[in-house]
């Protein structure tokens, strides 16, 4: 993509933002209709009409701290660079075998290596070859319109008018509940998108670290 078209796209997006961007309220319900709280769940909107392959401006960070990845779940736009600072007083050996990004990154004590570029969209499951319990999910999406839900945030904000496929992702979601919902953002009209889960959530799977209480003493 040329610099001109990048600028053009940026300008176009800026216009949309300034003009009439809207927010989408997100609701997740179980099969029976009761609300479901899915902390850190990712919501992202892929546009039918607006070009969304603008290069992201920022770097993302996934820290290794207390023998765990932080954050556990994160989302970035394709072509974002991610840095992996090691804040532990021990070495890590970060890896992924995921098709979206297969890599290994040795991280020696308190070292800050160069960033890793994620240039394919998809799910990247991170691990550490030294500390087998370490696990993190990085979702690489092909859109700038994404957010992570929390108790205080159930909205995808600043979405320009248009038609979108709205996706919901969380490691506890069943495969069949990952189908997107179609939404149309119209200027001045409030919009609520509802994800109705047809399957039970998988059990919360995150192997714990041995815990500072027990394992940080080595003599």
């Amino acid at each position, binding site marked *: 993509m040329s610099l001109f078209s990048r600028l053009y796209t940026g300008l176009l997006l800026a216009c949309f933002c300034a003009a009439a961007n809207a927010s989408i309220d997100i609701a997740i319900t179980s099969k029976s209709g009761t609300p479901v709280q899915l902390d850190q769940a990712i919501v992202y909107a892929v546009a039918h009409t607006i070009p969304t392959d603008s290069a992201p401006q920022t770097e993302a960070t996934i820290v290794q701290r207390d023998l765990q990845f932080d954050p556990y779940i994160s989302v970035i736009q394709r072509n974002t660079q991610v840095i992996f600072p090691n804040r532990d007083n021990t070495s890590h050996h970060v890896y992924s075998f995921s098709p979206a990004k297969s890599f290994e990154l040795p991280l020696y004590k308190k*070292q800050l290596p160069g960033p890793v570029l994620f240039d394919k969209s998809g799910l990247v499951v991170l691990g550490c070859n*030294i500390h087998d319990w370490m696990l993190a999910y990085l979702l690489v999406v092909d859109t700038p319109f994404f957010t992570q839900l929390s108790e205080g945030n159930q909205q995808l904000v600043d979405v320009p008018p248009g038609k979108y496929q709205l996706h919901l992702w969380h490691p506890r979601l069943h495969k069949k509940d990952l189908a997107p919902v179609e939404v149309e953002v119209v200027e001045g009209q409030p919009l609520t998108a509802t994800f109705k889960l047809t399957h039970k959530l998988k059990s919360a*799977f995150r*192997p*714990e670290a041995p815990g500072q*209480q027990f394992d940080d*003493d*080595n*003599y």
Partner: protein
Amino acid sequence: MTRTALLLLISASLPWPCTWAAENVHQPSPLELSGIVELQLSHNNGLTSWLDRGQGKHLHGGNNNNRIQNGLSGLELDYRLSHSAHLKASVLYNQKPGNRLDVTELYWQYRPLRQSRWRPSYKVGFFYPNISLENRGRLWSSPYTITSSTINSWIGEELRTAGAEVHWRNLGRQRQSFHDFGVTTALFGFNDNTGSLLSWRGWTNSERQTGIGGRLPLANRPTFAPGRVLADQTPEVEPFIERDNRIGYYSGLHWNYRQSTKAALHYYDNNADPSAFERGQYAWHTRFLHLGAQHRIDSNWELLAQYMRGRTQMDNSAGNVVYNHFDSGYLMLAGRWGPQRLALRWESFHVDDLDGTFMDSNGENGSSATISYSYRVGEHWKFTGEAINIRSDRRERRYSGLSQQADETRLLFSTRYFWAS
């Protein structure tokens, strides 16, 4: 010879990573060094120590009180050959006997990055089998207590893998499960003498670790006298020797649930030819079954338990000389509150003498209790107060005109300084 070579190795490698690090600030040195210096002040109430060829269970006897002594002091070297391969060595200073530097571990470790369902890791060299639940610190130290349990004291004294070990791990994360499994198998040599201390001294609680070429003293026995059945035995034990050129093995199964509950099962057989003999040392055929379990009760308390049951046999030209069954088990409750640790350990141990050798009783019944409190100051200092009481009943003590029963207590205050590059 070994000591000189080691000193050369250490001194040669010391300045090198420093200059390297100064030139390439962002490139970490491939050599990591860590060390512990421990000084102890102990008060002992008991018989003359077995280390002084006495019948006492502790490292220091009743005549060795209120003196400052070396505890666990040494250096650990970790040289990174690649992201997955390391060369590791541990050198300890043993004050008794003979003021020597002992290489307690020296091995190559390879943990390749594999996507496979069973991920392998390899060790080749001279190293501890992964049996102890206590000794998970640097230099095989225990963060819980100064002295190890009877099982792990014996491993520190007489058991080591001089060979190759493969450990396969099956990670629950690949199955979206909290259950990890592991399988270990190893082939080794140079452990033909293991079992002799258990027979001729019995179980004990100690923090001493034997290194390559190490020798441990034995109390005099009537059977060692000229003309008697073991007249050819030298009055010491060399745990890490090869006498019969036969390969020993062990296998283990491991289970780990959420990093909070662990269990392991091992079977060990040194496969020694019990009739092999050379230069004053017999081969002992020793095999045992080991069970270990650890459970973290909450964020402060954990429970550890190990149990071992086995047998050992030694023959000479006259036939069977020693045939013993042995077993030992402990239960430890350990608590931690920030820099403070408290450990309470109870154990029970036995040796059943099943041979008919005259004046060579190895039978033993005993129990021990340990209470340990430690306080850590910053990253470098740890102060520990510990009391260990061992009550034992050994018929053998009668040969020296002593009472069969002994009730021995060791009170110690320890200061450990820890450092890592």
